[in-house]
């Protein structure tokens, strides 16, 4: 982390574009945080039905307290644009953080272990394999059913008892097998790399937007589900990057030295590999954040996957479909969206310049 910080500091001091972009991002983020405290003339959902399609900056607009005009139902554009920024950050930041986290974990694991690095005895692998459906049924499905149907709590306790009992029985069985037969205790390599790569390929074989649209149609429109869906489709990008970087780092002399003095894998990854991964990940994160912002507004423009009561840039922009001459419905939320994406891309571009030039040495 200190390394990344040290490379960003001169960038901040020297490049005006980077400074401007960062200041803009900080300001808009601060604005979204303190937005509920600001004294706006109208809340975003207030329908001022007497003033539909008010053009911005006209005397009528200024008089009625809608400086940026209103949409077809008289919703204040200023409030909608600002709250739209809040929604956009509220969705895209956690989604991108989670996707990056999952991507880093799976990608570094794939790069570090490869196809032969992770070895386990066969009996333990079989135990894990059989334990997963058991835990899924008794640990997750039945408690969820109990919660859904409001059934008696005894079902839950019974499920817990069966879960523990069957896990114990499985463990004892396979331990016994492992001691009795040599085949069961032979160690088998887990192809982590292959597994992760096949998974990313499968997810990448359908274009992301199509995948999101199709999967969103299977689910009821809700924000948490949509966020999970976005995470599910976004993690392969980071995973591929982290894997490639990990493969590069693994060959570096310092890493070899760290292995040779007997560091544990956890310490190797955490202390020696991750700090070197920060730079490329930061590039991908800022770039991806811009993409998610655009994706979120596209989805809410199409009204897919989001509840239609969600205040967002996309919904405001969608108002233009009913009245093409209401240019302000596109110009203000779209302008803010483009500006934010531009700032993010600028940051990503500068990060790429410093980190790619340093990592090559």
């Amino acid at each position, binding site marked *: 982390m200190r390394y990344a910080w040290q490379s960003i500091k001169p960038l901040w001091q020297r490049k005006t574009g980077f400074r401007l972009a960062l200041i803009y991002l900080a300001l808009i983020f601060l604005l979204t945080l303190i937005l509920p405290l600001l004294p706006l003339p109208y809340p975003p959902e207030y329908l001022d039905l007497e003033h539909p399609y008010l053009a911005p900056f006209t005397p009528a607009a200024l008089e009625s307290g809608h400086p940026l005009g209103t949409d077809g139902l008289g919703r204040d554009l200023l409030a909608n644009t600002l709250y739209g920024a809040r929604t956009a950050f509220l969705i895209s930041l956690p989604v991108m953080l989670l996707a990056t986290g999952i991507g880093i974990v799976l990608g570094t694991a794939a790069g570090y272990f490869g196809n032969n690095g992770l070895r386990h005895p066969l009996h333990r692998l079989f135990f894990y394999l059989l334990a997963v459906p058991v835990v899924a049924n008794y640990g997750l499905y039945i408690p969820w059913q109990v919660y859904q149907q409001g059934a008696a709590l005894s079902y839950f306790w019974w499920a817990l008892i069966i879960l523990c009992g069957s896990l114990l029985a499985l463990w004892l069985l396979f331990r016994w097998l492992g001691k009795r037969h040599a085949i069961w205790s032979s160690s088998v390599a887990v192809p982590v790399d292959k597994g992760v790569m096949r998974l990313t390929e499968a997810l990448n*074989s*359908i274009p992301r937007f199509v995948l999101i649209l199709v999967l969103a149609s299977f689910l009821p429109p809700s924000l948490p589900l949509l966020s999970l869906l976005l995470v599910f489709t976004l993690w392969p990008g980071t995973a591929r990057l982290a894997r490639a970087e990990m493969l590069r780092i693994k060959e570096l002399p310092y890493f070899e030295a760290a292995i040779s003095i007997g560091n544990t894998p956890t310490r190797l990854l955490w202390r020696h590999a991750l700090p070197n991964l920060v730079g490329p990940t930061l590039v991908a994160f800022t770039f991806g954040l811009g993409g998610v912002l*655009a994706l979120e507004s596209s989805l809410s423009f*199409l009204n*897919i996957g989001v509840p239609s009561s969600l205040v967002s840039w*996309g919904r405001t922009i969608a108002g233009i479909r009913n009245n093409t001459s209401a*240019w302000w419905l596109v110009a203000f939320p779209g302008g803010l969206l483009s500006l934010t994406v*531009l700032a993010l*891309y600028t940051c990503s571009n500068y990060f790429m310049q410093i980190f790619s030039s340093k990592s090559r040495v």
Partner: protein
Amino acid sequence: MFPYLLRKLLLAIPAIWLLGTLVFLLSRLLPGSFAEERLLNQEGGFYSKGSQSSREGALRQYQERTGQNLPVFYVGLASQDESPGISLFPKVSWHGTDNQYHRWLKGIFTGDLGTSYRTGLPVLDMIWKSIGNTFWLLLASMVVTLILALELSILMARERLRWLRSLVLPILFFIDSIPMLVLSLLLLVLLANPDFLQIFPVYGMGYFVPGQLGFWQEVGQRLQYMALPHLALVLVNLPYITNQVYSSLQAALQADYTRTARAKGLPERLVIRRHALRNALLPLITIVSDFLPALVSGSILVETIFAIPGIGRLLVESVLARDYPVLVAIVLVVLVVRMVAYALADTAYALADPRLKPKLA
């Protein structure tokens, strides 16, 4: 070459089958369906005149007609409606071959992808009707984008035109950060709006009967309506492709053979066109083949905004209506297009690069 291609295609079939099966099962397993939403809806709608029981009867009749009353897969875990309580032990039941998945798979082999829930038409007909518009839109925009990108990069690579580079690259960066949604709506507002400039017709593909007009008249008519969507697609894709072409051209200009060509005394125009560009075109094949399926998703927003009856619009409408047969079929089409694109790219590589021929044989 041919056996290599055949092997690739044969390997692609299981992947398509697996992904298609996954999407199909997901679409049927998750709760809520088109019919339930339409027929059981309490408020409004045609069917709400009847009582609750008649609505349920209509739903059952509809499900029987479309085969949705059958079990989803060969094997099923005990379903909830048979036993209202919670069972601690999962009941596995065997449904035989009379299930939805079996019918669907059998239909695919006989060229029948089912009927749409929304329109009642065969899915294949609907896709066939809309794929032409998307295809021409994408092909034309891709060709224009490629030509523009090539010419721009060639111009920018010349020593005397340095100023052009410092002008074009920032502009492209700026265009790149405007999301597609905002860009196409801005074009619509600026160029097809009576309040600003009414240069292009706004929506759709024009009204005419295909047989009535002469060939050139029809082309003219189409061009008028396609101009704005084309412009949007070209502008959205141009920055990325130009950047890729330019960087690969830059790399080719650093190579030894370019130095030799310069030393030979060739004029710069010929050095770039004849020696550098040919080698720089190789990575372009990958970019284009990666772009073909991505274009399908890229055209979703453009088709929705400009009301072009293509695949993207069909997808959005089907998602909004939860028309699963169409969705699954579109996913299959996209997968097949992707595989074909990869096969084409491999062939193009083998044709363009003689070094690869022995490797592929």
